[in-house]
């Protein structure tokens, strides 16, 4: 079935952009222990109630998570960012630019990792969809 050439071009651009989107990969959140934060982690985002702090240069001792609160925006990839959820909010101590949280008050620690299976799987689905759609559109 023939379509106007302009519409076909637009369609191809959309398909290309969507392909770029999906090729950035599929990430899943994984729960870890705060004592096993991946070594590649550059940024920890501490969440407590409605508050959050982005800390860098962190350290984890036997009982405390300590880090330096970032003053500006930090560019770190998903896989180098860990999220820590704290309760109650009073457990977070901020002195100057240093944040401290007792490990006992960290309820959950999440990190994002690339899900190879999902990325490949959805990539295959997307490629097959592209193939089918281009065959239909012509």
């Amino acid at each position: 079935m023939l379509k106007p050439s302009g519409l076909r071009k637009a369609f191809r651009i959309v398909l290309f952009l969507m392909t770029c989107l999906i090729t950035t990969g599929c990430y899943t959140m994984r729960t870890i222990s705060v004592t096993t934060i991946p070594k590649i982690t550059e940024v920890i985002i501490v969440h407590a109630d409605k508050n959050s702090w982005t800390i860098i240069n962190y350290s984890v001792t036997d009982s405390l998570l300590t880090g330096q609160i970032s003053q500006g925006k930090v560019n770190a990839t998903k896989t180098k960012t860990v999220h820590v959820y704290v309760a109650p909010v009073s457990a977070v101590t901020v002195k100057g630019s240093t944040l401290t949280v007792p490990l006992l008050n960290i309820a959950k620690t999440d990190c994002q990792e690339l899900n190879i299976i999902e990325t490949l799987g959805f990539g295959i689905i997307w490629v097959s969809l592209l193939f089918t759609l281009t065959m239909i559109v012509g």
Partner: protein
Amino acid sequence: MRSSLVIQKTVALLLSALFLIQFSGCRSLRSIPLNEIQYAEKQHYYVHGQNKYYQISGMAISDGILTGLITNPISPPEKNKVMHIYVAPDSVISVRDNLVSFPFSNIAKAEIYDVDEGKAILIGAGTANAVFWSALMIAFMSSCPFVYSEDGTEINFEGEVYSGATATPIERDDYLALKSISPVNNRYNIRITNEVHEIQNTNLAELQIYDHPANAEVLVDKYGIAHTVSDIRQPVSAVNAYGRSIVSELSKCDNARYLSEIRNDGLLLDTISLSFEKPHNSKRAKLIISAKNTMWLDYMFARLSDMFGNRYDEWIRIRNKRSPEYLLQWSLDQGIPLAVYLETASGLVFVDYYNVPGPVKDRKDILQIDLSGVTGDRVNVRLVSGVMFWDLDNAAMDFSEDASVKCTTAAIDNATDETGEEVTSLLLHDDDRYLVQPDINNEARLSFKVPSQVPGTERSVFLHSKGNYQLVRDASGKPDMDLLVTMRRPGMFIRFTKDHFLKYYADRN
């Protein structure tokens, strides 16, 4: 042929339906604001401490304290009724009798399952895509009768018969190994079914039952001659038309297989060059392949048929009046059967060809080759076909002499069609009486008495059938006569299929 508009509508409907289905299934965890916990209307709550874990229900929040009753559901609750609550520190979680309680302010995070629209859409679309291609394959598949056998517990698909016999002059014999058949109440039972858009005409069906030495495999060639194979040798080299080694793809019956490379060049015939070590003084060899046709060949043959448009039926009538030599030559000129060439002292010589086995299941086939013209310690053969027509799993050679086997031919004892009508007489002899199966889901059930087996032997059973079939097309529109006339020339059908493939590849890129 369905118009592309119908296909698009079908795909749209399938996608819509599957989107709705998938939206209920693709769920992933997402955080919810803590002040929405009490409004989430969930039934089951998983309370996670650092070292504690409880499943509760009947959640209530009062005076800043969340309480719930510990539960132990027999089966995991549905995800859309579940909330995960993360609490710290563990010391605030109080358990009294079956009641769990903790301050609301000690909740660090709450998560519920929600539909992942992106994944749902992609999985739904992917599923619809798979369904679309399956339906398309079935719509366009031209695949001859399917044969099933019974083993007492299951009905097993064995393969296709007389594939490629698409006109009455090229009606042919076929010898299909029934690998899964076993006697049931001292009978061999098989089924012949029509599962594609064809009119299938089976002339004859009988069993050839071989009792043979245990260390030998029996294969029956297209001439009906049984050969034993007991010393199979893999090729020492196998190279495709572009010089790429494919010996690992062809050395065993496994998941590694060979499919043609397609490049934007003038190559129309794919040539696989095989070399085998020749035992001293060998005068004959048996070349064995395990292969099937590609769906692409089936699809393109159907596309060619559709080009006859409203003159399709007339083309069928003309074809059925051609000589078998004419039709076979056309088929060979278009690279459809797998041709075998042998290197001899006087040059490359055409030896024989393998009939098309069909696209659904690998089939082992065998050809005997005279080696009297071969000098040296190698047997070099070439397998030639149109690019992307064949899908090869294995190629091997056997130099052993055929062992003595006993063959018993079993005629049909009883055969009925899907309505229960007796059809035995239609299949007993190679004559002008046929079992005609014009519709999808036509099924004939054939039963044979099991002859006694020679002691100390193994038994192999083959279905000897003969027949022809005709593709059913929804032919309409004006035929493309300019293109169709060119199809008479050798290689033009291969050019037609290759150009088709390259065009879609170029459009995608």
